[in-house]
């Protein structure tokens, strides 16, 4: 075969030639491993059996009914919503401000950077016991403000990173132009910067919400008996209940996650 013919053959077959098909199959299998297992909770949640068996002997919505009728489960869900909402507000405000400040150079900036992303890199168990020790002395265990403050610590770095990335893509000369035209700093921020970085802020806010809503390790320590969050309730339930109510809660969570992801994707498309 001439060199030219070989080159053409390679051109058509892609970088790996015929092995492309095998590789593609492998890739699909691994992606299936990633995406599919979680969905096993869906059929379980509709099981007619009283305990975990597969395949389910019949279909029923009893576990969803049990979830919606249970004071404990509904209370925990509502509590998680409250905490996540408040965390979202606190983390977004603090984080956006910090991200704005981090545009500038100043002495000690690397240290501040480190402090801000530290909650993500430090293993959660360490943060959890540190805060637990603090809260035990301040009597903040089992309180909503306590949960919000702790979750804000965890959500803050994400907000700073996301808004920071948005700001990096933002053209600062627009701000300079606005100021040259006579706007003061607040007007500049409100009328020029904010609208342009709004999609980034909204993404960051959603990320903060989900970080708080799904947070489990810290909640195990500080949510206490009186104020369990939904993940804490699930954690207890996995170990103390034998019925698949957990499966119905899990299915609902999966559906909510999917909706939020789609929303973010659509936001991306627009922003």
């Amino acid at each position: 075969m001439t060199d030219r013919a070989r080159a053409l053959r390679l051109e058509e077959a892609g970088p790996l030639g015929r092995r492309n098909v095998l590789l593609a199959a492998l890739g699909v299998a691994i992606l299936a491993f990633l995406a599919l297992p979680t969905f096993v909770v869906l059929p379980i949640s509709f099981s007619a059996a009283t305990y975990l068996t597969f395949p389910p002997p019949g279909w029923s919505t009893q576990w969803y009914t049990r979830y919606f009728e249970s004071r404990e489960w509904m209370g925990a869900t509502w509590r998680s919503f409250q905490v996540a909402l408040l965390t979202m507000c606190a983390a977004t405000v603090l984080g956006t401000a910090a991200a704005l400040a981090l545009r500038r150079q100043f002495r000690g900036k690397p240290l501040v950077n480190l402090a801000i992303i530290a909650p993500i890199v430090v293993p959660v168990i360490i943060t959890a016991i540190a805060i637990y020790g603090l809260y035990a002395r301040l009597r903040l265990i089992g309180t909503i403000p306590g949960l919000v403050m702790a979750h804000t610590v965890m959500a803050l770095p994400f907000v700073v990173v996301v808004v920071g990335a948005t700001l990096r893509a933002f053209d600062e000369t627009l701000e300079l132009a606005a100021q040259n035209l006579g706007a003061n700093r607040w007007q500049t921020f409100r009328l020029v910067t904010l609208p342009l970085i709004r999609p980034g802020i909204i993404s960051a806010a959603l990320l903060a919400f989900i970080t708080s809503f799904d947070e489990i390790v810290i909640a195990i320590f500080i949510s206490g008996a009186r104020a369990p969050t939904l993940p804490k309730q699930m954690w207890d339930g996995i170990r103390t209940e034998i019925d698949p109510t957990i499966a119905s809660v899990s299915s609902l969570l999966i559906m909510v996650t999917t909706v939020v992801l789609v929303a973010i994707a659509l936001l991306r498309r627009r922003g």
Partner: protein
Amino acid sequence: MSSVTRRYILKMGILTAAGGALARPLSPLIARAQARQLVVCSWGGAYQEAQRKSMFEPFEKETGIKIVEASPTDYGKLKAMVLSGNVEWDLVDVGDRMVTAGAKDGLLEPMDYQMVDTRDVFPQVVQKYGLGTIYYSTILAYSTKKYPSGNHPKSWAEFWDVKRFPGPRTVRNNPIDNLEFALMADGVPMDKIYPLDVERAFKSMDRVKKQITVWWTTGAQPAQLLADGEVDLATAWNGRIATIIQQGAKAGIEWNQGKLQWDSWVIPKGSRNKDGAMKFIAFTTQPEIQAAITKYIPYGPVNKKAFDFIDPKVAKDLPTHPENSKRQVMVDTIYWGENLTALTEKWNAWFVK
């Protein structure tokens, strides 16, 4: 100072002040709300559900005090709460040994027997720092799928015999539901179990340690594992197994060499609603309420008069029924109360080896 920063600081200041102003008038409201609610911690799962239907809901209806449930009971957690001053549970359902242990460690409030009628209660469970609520047994549970025709292990020696009865097993991750069985498996007769020969018990546990697939920590687990087919044999609390049998699981209870024990109500020191807790204890010691729980889960009453209200068919499955109790060993609660902490530490060290 630029106008931006001035406005920013102003905004922050107003928000903080508003937050603080809101918090203060709420505190007496919070205190009053706490008196109208009672945080009860029990063992979760089917047992707590039975308590909910037979005790918590009737109590709420009669007194208007709202019951907030917590679970599961954990002696370590209780100790941590009391010692750190963060007592979240107003009333706790504990195993009998925790009454003596808790009293020894200074974690409990004494019972106010002025408020409770204990005339017909078995004297064994009427203690200074706790009042009994139900009798239960830790028994050998087996899968009827694996052992359909009565060929299951019928003693602890047989449970320990992994050659004759191979297969996955689950036992509790706690010395309390293990050491007596380990001794019985080693040949110690039931009437000579106490005081425990601890070294011998742990050596006996070593023989079966590697065969244990799961070490359960909550009452629901062994029942679930049996029902799911994850294990073939288990040590478990009789009521939890009876519940899944009723729901159609293929499981069975072996009463032979079971361990009879009881649960008590205790009030942690620093409980926020001592009065409500005592009211609840008084309410649930009445014979009708004692009998009510047997409708949902087969645990024996501590009030003798309750038997007047219990269906004889149901009574057959109770751990305190003479046919069942004569084959079991009664726990030595004093022994466990004194040695609980030391043995738990020894167990934890042994467990990770």
